[in-house]
């Protein structure tokens, strides 16, 4: 009987405690403004303009895109200012895309990212993107029956999955930012006539945008970047009327570092199996295939070397060549490597095999 009384007592105590003062705020999902995209634009000095876009769900199952803009110096201050104008509290737990305009990217934006990393409600899979246009402008437009944040994130997600751009998100950005011997690279997006699209891949030194890889060169970058990759496509022009489009079926990339931490040559070996998607020069026979293999090999090696040279000049290392060296040396010295990096001869050796030509030859 005594036990029963204790149990009832416990229940009573806990019940009264619970109904009273747990002191936590409810965040009912439909009473929140779920920001899906946040855009930051440089105004002057420390001042930035922040725009968030969020979906407004209407009862007829349509989604309307809405935005709020505020200007301040501190990230969380901005949120408060936006909240002043908002019907429901704004939360960032469903953030999908973070946009920085080019000016801010060139000045460096890690402080802003830092406040986002500190916030436990923001996931690591958020896309960080540089925008060539005014974020406010892009975010306030509606594209289809969804809010702009989801729209942008779908574009990036889709392109990562099909293999056109390398994987990117907040975690990878911070990884590369902190990594010794590797620098971040994130997509640059811009408005076009039919919506928003990925224009290039922006390369960073620390958190500052220093260079970019254009659309056409992404193929080479992607094959060099991933140790195993597939799905990249490229158009090649042999001359004015000989054109072909190829797709990378499967490629592997290996580094050969003969003498780490010295001026000795670093070799990047790429083996790729490719397939023809489009060809407009009559029948494809064995000779032509062979010819094409050689052509692609040459072009690949040239282009890659050119890219790497650009990286070296700009002092950025998006491929992680430094990381390759670091994991091959004991007593890694970052300073020494930073001095060495611009002058190391880096060569690319490609081995291309055309395996398929589609349904017809």
């Amino acid at each position, binding site marked *: 009987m005594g036990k029963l009384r204790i149990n009832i007592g416990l229940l009573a105590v806990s019940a009264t405690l619970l109904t009273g003062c747990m002191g936590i705020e*409810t965040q009912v999902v439909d009473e929140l403004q779920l920001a899906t995209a946040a855009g930051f634009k440089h105004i002057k000095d420390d001042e930035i303009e922040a725009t968030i876009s969020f979906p407004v769900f209407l009862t007829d199952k349509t989604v309307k895109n809405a935005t709020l803009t505020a200007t301040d110096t501190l990230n969380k201050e901005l949120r408060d200012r936006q909240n002043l104008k908002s019907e429901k509290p704004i939360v960032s737990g469903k953030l999908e895309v973070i946009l920085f305009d080019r000016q801010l990217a060139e000045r460096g934006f890690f402080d802003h990212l830092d406040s986002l990393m500190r916030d436990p409600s923001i996931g690591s899979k958020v896309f960080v993107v540089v925008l060539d246009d005014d974020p406010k402008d892009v975010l306030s437009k509606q594209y289809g029956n969804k809010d702009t944040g989801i729209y942008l994130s779908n574009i990036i997600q889709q392109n990562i999955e099909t293999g056109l751009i390398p994987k990117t998100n907040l975690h990878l950005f911070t990884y590369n930012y902190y990594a010794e011997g590797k620098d971040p690279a994130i997509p640059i997006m811009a408005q076009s006539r039919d919506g928003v699209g990925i224009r290039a891949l922006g390369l960073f030194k620390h958190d500052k945008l220093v260079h970019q890889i254009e659309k056409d060169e992404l193929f080479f970058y992607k094959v060099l970047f991933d140790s195993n990759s597939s799905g990249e496509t490229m158009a090649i022009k042999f001359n004015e009327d000989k054109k072909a489009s190829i797709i990378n079926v499967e490629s592997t990339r290996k580094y050969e570092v003969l003498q780490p931490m010295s001026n000795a040559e670093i070799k990047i070996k790429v083996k790729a199996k490719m397939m023809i998607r489009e060809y407009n020069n009559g029948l494809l026979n064995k000779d032509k295939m062979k010819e094409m293999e050689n052509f692609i090999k040459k072009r690949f090696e040239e282009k890659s070397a050119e890219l790497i040279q650009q990286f070296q000049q700009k002092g950025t290392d998006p491929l992680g060549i430094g990381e390759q060296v670091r994991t091959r040396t004991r007593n890694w010295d970052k300073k020494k490597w930073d001095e060495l990096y611009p002058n190391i001869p880096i060569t690319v050796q490609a081995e291309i095999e055309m395996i398929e030509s589609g349904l017809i030859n």
Partner: protein
Amino acid sequence: MKRWKTIRNKENGKEQQGEEPFQALLQQLVNSDDFIQFTYKSAAGLLCIGYYTSLIDGKILHQDILPNIKSLESIHHLHSLIPIENIIVTSDVTKIKDSLLNGHMMVFITKDIGQIGLVRAPVDNTREVSIPEVEFSVVGPKESFVESLDKNLNLVRKRLPLPELKTIEIVIGTISKTKVSVLYIDGIANKENVQTVTQRLSDLEIDQVNDSSYLTQLIQDNQNSPFPQLIDTERPDRIASALGEGKVAILVDGAPHGLIAPTNLFEFFVAYEDYFLNWAVATFFRLVRFFAVLFSILITPIYVAVLTYHYELIPKDLVSTLVTSRNPIPLPPIMEALILELAIELLREAGARLPTKVGQTIGIVGGIVIGTASVEAGLTSNVLLIIVALAALASFTTPVYQMGNTIRLIRFPFLLMAHYIGLVGVAVSFIFLLIHLLRLSSLGRPFLEPVYPLRLQGLVDSIIRLPIPFQSKRPAQSQAEDDKKFNAMKAKRIKDTKKND
């Protein structure tokens, strides 16, 4: 009344003292209007017969007793006159009283005053053995217990024709005088378990036992737990197999359900039909049932917790579905959920209280009309409606009815905790449940037995059911004296005669 007195006065005035209790008894009996008594003139003087009409079979009375009894000379000759084997002659007043109330009639003649003959002629109006309704099975035996202890014992004994099958009869209830039988197989069942059960039963202090479920509530280890700690079943085959596993069964007169002890949590999710199906199918069904229980307990609380506190957890593709469905609703998720859960409980309760046919209509009307209307009126979201309906459906898959009720009950504390502290509350409730289950025992044996303490011997037939040869040993929980059921090696071998092809 007067007539009885006159007999006594005429024939034997001396024995007045010894007659006193008998006199009192008679007085008591005659007070009831369904007690019939009349006097004959027989070969040996006056012959009196008395009985309760409501308890005596008129056919036996008219065909076997009345025609033969007239020539009675001495009370001790009853045996030779009446073709009924169950005749006692006694002067013990309590015995007379009990027998009268159990369907005996009493006969006494003036010659042998003080000696009463008791002839058994009970009317048998229990219902026939019928198809099990609570634990229905598509395949397998289709007989279930009825309200008569004798018939029930017969059903069990038919399945276990063993002299080792022992019963201990105990009468419980100061006014109901219910006969309770404890069944066990000597040499298999653990003596300690039998001892505990009989001990607990005979120690009971209660006036009435109208059903076996009274006993479940009274003799289980923790009476405040919502979890039943004895299985009740209406299937004689289930009782027989439990006895074979070394457990103890209790049958109660007037109750169409027998009890089994000791038991564990997992047995409550065993439908006896599992044993009639292929092991893979049966295992799949069992897993479905366990999933259903977890689903039923957790899904609504998780919905409430996530929508109230943890919007981050909702995948981005689901956000719009959830928000759109919740947009027109003015109530917080907990109210919404409670309204729906209560509606379902009301439907269930109404269906259970009404006659079957009306009940079905209520279910359909309530389910469709109330559900659709409340969504349209903007009181509940259709996503939650689906969730609650599925959770309710899942809770009805529990084979043992009592456990099904428990599961529906424990959802509510989960729901409230989810509202107060979100997922942390769900975890707290879940752990509370785990500790509670760990603390429970059935006849002193742990309630989570094959899982904790871990017993491989029992695991083969708990959450999963492996092929029959794997179950060659009795589960450790029953602590059987002889734990080997059969030879597993021999059971596996199929001794076909060699084929000629």
